[in-house]
């Protein structure tokens, strides 16, 4: 399947370029089988998820010494490969790992050492570590590079556009499909007036908001929102349920940004972390199930701004750290593996940790992004997406091969 899928991607990309004339796509688009374009979902764990609790280095004795009160009890982790194990509440995702549909990248991170949430998030979402002059999201640059400049190509499942999607290509931001409806009377007449008014505004910011809104109202009314799986009632569950409906309806969504807030556990981590993890794992498992065969063309990439301090702090929590973990679900992954630079765990001792206190980031997060854009989204040259960074397939972590 991977080979034929990739072959199709090249064709699809070429035909998009051929029909880049405004308004031409809907009418002139060649007939094709529904649901073959690849979709990338960037799921951001805000606050700095504790990588060492999510994917436990159970084979490293330093872990247990550094976490006397908040460690995942030895033996309770869900064994992945003889060294690492999932947090027990990742159980809903274990079958996907075992089936080769989920791959983990451990000890990944940024070359910039900031422990500020907001700088670290920006650096990652703009794929520009240490550079505050770059304010365009990596996914927005991808849209430009791939020629996916139609607003429907990308959506944030929130009221506000994710920073990873901000930039010159207009994208959509919607929390709830069920609320995308105009209330009251004389809807058609008012809708027409709004479209005319906003269509005449020179400011692209307001013009896009108004005209996209009107178009989206029409689109959403055609989407069947019935899920084929049971989601948690959390914000994450709702967002992924809405997203699955859009992907299954194949309306043209190719990139989506989803947030999962509240991973900043400076205190009482044993109370908070398991709840967050359960929500994450059960929401994602429902999403993967709901997508059905569309999971073959959909890749979820889960990321966070940094991991947390190796040693727990005095409040049953962990302070901001450095190296972290990412994982990918779906698509044509060669999953069922925990991937690391040179297949080497950097260790948790003072000699090999970042500044002697935090997990090192041996895989640059941009290499993960670049591999996903190249091998899942079919972008032949990801270089324009990554300013001041040399993209080289030999540095890809190897999620697909």
């Amino acid at each position, binding site marked *: 399947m991977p080979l034929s899928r990739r072959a199709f991607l090249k064709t699809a990309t070429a035909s998009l370029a051929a029909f880049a004339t*405004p*308004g031409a*796509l*809907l*009418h002139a688009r060649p007939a094709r089988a529904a*649901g073959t374009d690849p979709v990338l979902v960037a799921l951001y764990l805000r606050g700095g998820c504790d990588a060492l609790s999510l994917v436990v280095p159970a084979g490293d004795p330093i872990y247990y010494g550094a976490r006397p009160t908040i460690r995942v009890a030895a033996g309770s982790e869900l064994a992945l490969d003889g060294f690492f194990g999932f947090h027990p509440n990742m159980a809903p995702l274990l079958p996907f790992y075992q089936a080769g549909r989920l791959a983990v990248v451990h000890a990944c991170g940024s070359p910039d050492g900031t422990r*500020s949430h907001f700088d670290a998030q920006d650096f990652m979402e703009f794929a520009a570590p240490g550079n505050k002059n770059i304010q*365009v999201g990596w996914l927005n640059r991808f849209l430009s590079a791939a020629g996916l*400049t*139609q*607003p429907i190509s990308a959506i*944030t499942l*929130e*009221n*506000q*556009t994710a920073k990873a999607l*901000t*930039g*010159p*290509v*207009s994208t959509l*931001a*919607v*929390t*709830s499909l069920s*609320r*995308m409806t*105009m209330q*009251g009377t004389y809807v058609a*007449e*008012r809708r*027409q*007036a*709004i479209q005319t*008014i906003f269509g*005449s505004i*020179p*400011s*692209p*910011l*307001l*013009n*896009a*908001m*108004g005209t996209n809104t009107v*178009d989206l109202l029409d*689109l959403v009314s*055609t989407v069947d929102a019935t899920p084929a799986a049971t989601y948690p009632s959390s914000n994450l569950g709702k967002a992924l349920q809405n997203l699955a409906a859009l992907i299954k309806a194949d309306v*043209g969504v190719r990139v989506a940004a989803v947030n999962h807030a*509240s991973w*900043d556990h*400076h*205190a009482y981590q044993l109370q908070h972390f398991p709840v967050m993890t359960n929500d994450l794992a059960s929401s994602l498992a429902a999403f993967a199930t709901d997508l059905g065969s569309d999971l073959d063309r959909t890749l979820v990439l889960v990321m966070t701004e940094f991991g947390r301090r190796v040693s727990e*702090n*005095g*409040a049953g*929590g962990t*302070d*901001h750290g450095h190296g972290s973990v990412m994982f990918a679900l779906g698509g044509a992954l060669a999953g069922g593996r925990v991937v690391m630079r040179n297949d080497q765990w950097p260790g948790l001792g003072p000699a090999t940790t970042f*500044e002697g206190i935090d997990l090192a980031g041996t895989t640059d997060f941009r290499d993960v992004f670049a591999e996903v854009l190249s091998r899942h989204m079919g972008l032949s040259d990801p270089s324009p997406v990554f300013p001041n960074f040399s993209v080289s397939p030999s540095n890809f972590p190897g999620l697909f091969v």
Partner: protein
Amino acid sequence: MASTPASLRARRAAILVAGAVLLAGAACNDLQKQQQRRETVLNRIGYGPDPWSRQRIAELGVAAYIEEQLNPSALDDSALEAQIASLYPVTTMAYGQSRTTFHEYTGNPEMGPFIPLRDGTHAKILRAVKSKKQLEQVLVDFWYNHFNVDALIEEARWGYLTMERDAIRPHVFGKFEDMLRAVAQNPGMLDYLDNSVNFKTDFVYLGTKRGINENYAREILELHTVGVDGGYSQQDVREVARAFSGWTVAVTTNSTSNGFMFYSPGHDRGAKSVMGLELPANRGQMDGIDVIRHLSLLPQTAYFLSRKLCQRFISEPPPQRVVDAAAQTYLATGGDLRETVRTILLSPELTDPAYFRGKVKRPLVYVASLGRALGVNDDHWFAYVMATRVSQMGETLFRAGPPTGYPDVSRYWVGEGAYVARINLAWEAAHGNLGFAPQFDAPGPTPAEVVNQLQKQFIKTGIRPETRAALETLARGLPPGAVVPQTAATLLASPENLVH
């Protein structure tokens, strides 16, 4: 496959905003310019014009109106405050009293732990709409958002209200240092950023071994004072955390408690060094007090705060000349916020056409400005409904999760989902469904006269010819009884009413 409208698939131009103006104004004569200036002031330093503020600024002139807003003690809000105290008694309670009253869920839904958040939200909405002290309300919102506490975190459930009322409001025209200290000692903040569990290494507190926790220390530097580029190191973060060790929450049933306690046995008594400030050993609570003073008076803090204030009141990015002037005022006055804000509000840039309509109204501003424009006839119902609508637009009050608060950036507030919520709110408001009593000035019979009258009533700064033409077309196609409310609803959802 579902059908996708052609325009969603068509290429759209760049959405990044380089300049300040989002929407050009119509050409106008001197009288109109004067009116535009007044309306801009009301839109910028408050939650938009209402009949009282329009009359007041016409009587006093722009400069004197601003001066009165900077010294608002003579403005009479007593009826409003009495009403809020009666509708929402929790807003008058000390921290300890609120905690003892609402902490234990008794089965009576009106006594549960969510009541303080609900009632404080309603009170905030009513003040935004009805207070004559409009600038004070805007500044209280600005500073709450600057420090930000998520009101459902532990002690913040009661502490967020006293943070707004006791730590922020008394100081919005005072010294920043005093506000920063009061916030640092607020139990909501202490829990939200974990300083309540920040103790010297290996200290046993309430039966649990504790240690240094960096969370508050990092954010007081990064977000509250010098900013992330303010020139501090990881070592400074550590030293600040040691300085504040032992600042914790006084968990008590004492109904007069403000919730702060310095627990000296848990304080790290060693000497410390913070960004050029040397703190000798054994000074207890004075470590934190001195760190607050030191950080408050640093030039980095002056520029960081001035920039944020200018971004709120003028444009994004803010004009550098005003940022510099405000920072100089701040430094020359020892961090006096009235003087700093005065420099900004009396700057010509405040009403300079170059920055006209430069910002998208945040949800609370949009909602409150509708209430002020249309008149509210049922305060409690209005506050109740508006709280949910502000939430749907993405600005759930007192509930920003990250310690940055909500971003004060236009592009953050222009999502399609959020805009549909504004369209629907404007429609309901114009039809009297929301505790509004829409009073429309009697319009003439023609579509042009209707649009003209509504524009004069609601958007005195003018609308673009394209907007006017589209509204006239709409009005022409409607039956007589529907013309005014439907046209008004569309005008209130038009871009001219989304920006300020």
